[in-house]
């Protein structure tokens, strides 16, 4: 397997603010790789350094085993889809998409052929003479995609490309992006703060926090085997038992437990689960297919439990009432810190 991108010890600070701290990443060729983290965690800075828009104070960037640390962006064989799309407002859709071909002085016939091809791929036939200002958000997104894909780059960088779209459109674009990636067999490096997006699309995810990479893993492992309490907390809904509380369960490290592994003990049946705690209902949130019931335990942390709403034998829980929650030792995740 070839390495598309390698980051070797990248550090970057803006004045006294450390944006990236000793980042090491290896991204495989053809991989869908996400940089996930809250805003200000350094994921976009990392992308800008890969693209070459920003330099780093320390470390090296390798593109297909070639050191490109000092190579300007226009000489790097990769393309970017920008968060605000960055379409040229004075050019039509067609000239926007054909921009890189004109720069490379590709002959006109070839230009037109490739533009028509890509217009079809992103389903924008008939819109080619419009100005970006005459398009909807989703259409602009497609133009931005087409413009960066027309060169058939080996690596495509995407900076929160779906952030400005509404939920329905976003879900539809997620599927299309994934299909495009498979079709062109390009390495995608995808920056997002949306964990659902990262989990559903990526082959691997790097979770960023405070300029550091907390964990690099497959979506399955990121969700089920988070290494740090930050990752456990950031991805999905979880309850964390810090070290002090964990000792009550005879566990020496802090651990987390997902709501789907917690059950509420009904008075009739006696259960055989490993751990039991008393907790009081503080809130019940209707979520459509399930209820999210929030408990407060004697450890003063809140636990979420899911209850299927389409279950016939539904018990209606009351706020402020105490119940016994239980879970198994095998379902907990031990955390490093």
């Amino acid at each position, binding site marked *: 397997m070839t390495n598309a991108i390698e980051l070797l010890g990248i550090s970057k600070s803006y004045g006294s603010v450390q944006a990236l701290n000793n980042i090491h990443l290896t991204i495989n060729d053809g991989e869908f790789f996400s940089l996930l983290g809250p805003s200000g965690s350094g994921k976009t800075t990392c992308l800008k350094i890969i693209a070459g*828009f920003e330099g780093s104070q320390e470390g090296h960037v390798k593109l297909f085993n070639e050191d490109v640390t000092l190579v300007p962006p*226009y000489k790097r064989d990769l393309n*970017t889809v*920008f968060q*605000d799309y*960055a379409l040229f407002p004075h050019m039509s859709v067609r000239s926007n998409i054909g921009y890189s071909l004109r*720069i490379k002085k590709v002959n006109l016939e070839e230009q037109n052929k490739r533009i028509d091809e890509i217009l079809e791929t992103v389903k924008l036939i008939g819109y080619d003479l419009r100005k970006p200002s005459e398009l909807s958000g989703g259409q602009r997104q497609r133009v931005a995609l087409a413009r960066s894909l027309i060169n058939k780059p080996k690596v495509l960088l995407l900076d929160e490309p779906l952030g400005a779209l509404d939920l329905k459109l976003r879900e539809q674009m997620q599927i299309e992006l994934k299909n495009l990636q498979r079709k062109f067999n390009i390495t995608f490096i995808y920056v997002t703060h949306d964990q659902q997006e990262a989990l559903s699309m990526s082959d691997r995810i790097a979770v960023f926090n405070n300029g550091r990479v907390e964990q690099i893993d497959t979506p399955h492992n990121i969700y089920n085997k988070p290494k740090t309490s930050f990752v456990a907390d950031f991805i999905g809904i979880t309850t964390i038992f810090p070290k002090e509380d964990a000792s009550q369960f005879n566990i020496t490290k802090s651990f987390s437990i997902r709501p789907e592994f917690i059950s509420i003990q009904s008075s009739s049946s006696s259960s055989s689960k490993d751990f039991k705690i008393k907790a009081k209902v503080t809130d019940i949130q209707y979520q459509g297919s399930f209820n999210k019931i929030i408990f407060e335990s004697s450890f003063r942390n809140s636990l979420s439990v899911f209850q299927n709403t389409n279950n016939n034998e539904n018990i209606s829980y009351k706020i402020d009432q105490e119940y016994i929650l239980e879970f198994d030792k095998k379902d907990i995740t031990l955390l490093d810190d």
Partner: protein
Amino acid sequence: MINFIVNISDYFYRNKNFLFLLFLLPPLSWLGIIYLGSLLTFLSHSFFSLDGFTGKINYTFTLNTIFELFNSRANFDILIRTVGLALTVTFGSALIGFPIAYYMAKFTSPKVKIFFYIAIMLPLWSSYLVRVYSWKLILAKEGIINWFFGKLHLTWLLDKILSIPYIGGPSLSISYIGMFLVFTYIWLPFMILPIHASLERVPNSLINASLDLGASKRQTFYKVILPLALPGIAAGSIFTFSLTLGDYIIPYIIGTSKFFIGQAVYTHQGTAGNIPLAAAFSLVPIIVMIFYIKTAKKLGAFDAL
């Protein structure tokens, strides 16, 4: 009585447009009557003529006064001279103004930007006449520029430049080069500010996108930055061009004895009392400006607005 007032108030509430019109009438009539009315009255005189014997205006429609602009060699030279200088000044202002505006918009911190704003606006807060007279001193034979050239033993070069026909003159302070320098200095803020405003609206991501798509910095400048700054350059050039067309003080103080449109209007309506010819001269900048804006529009200067 109370009832009557309530009725009026109700009427206004229901007929908002009428109330709106009532409020707008005073400013609109100011613009319409005092502003445009007097201008049109004056300009309409260009279609009358002056009786050479009595010195009175003959109020019958004629195109002779307008023809006089083109038939008389002296008058026609005034038009050509003025438009030529206005174009040169506009070009010079854009050439000097663009880099300053570009630096301000893309490379300065907010604090430095405020410094630039003040530096650019500061001259506008002092008297126009004072600034022009200062330049007269700077450019004079005894002035600092001559002194500087003298110190560098380059007086011969300055003399050579001044001896070039058309743009030269007896000294910098009585020459077209001098006028060009002073005009460019005086109108520069009107060029920098619109260009700066248009560049400020170009997001950095557009520049990054262009680099990302393989364009070098130079190509990015010509294909992305310059086209998007064009409306600003056009707006700035409308200021510098039209202000130069109409000015008569700088040609009077710095210029040679050759007239410009502003001076022609001034003498014809003042000492000569030839209001129709003055009006005809005034018509020229307006018509030139209309053509100028139309051409700019055709060339796509306002496409990126």
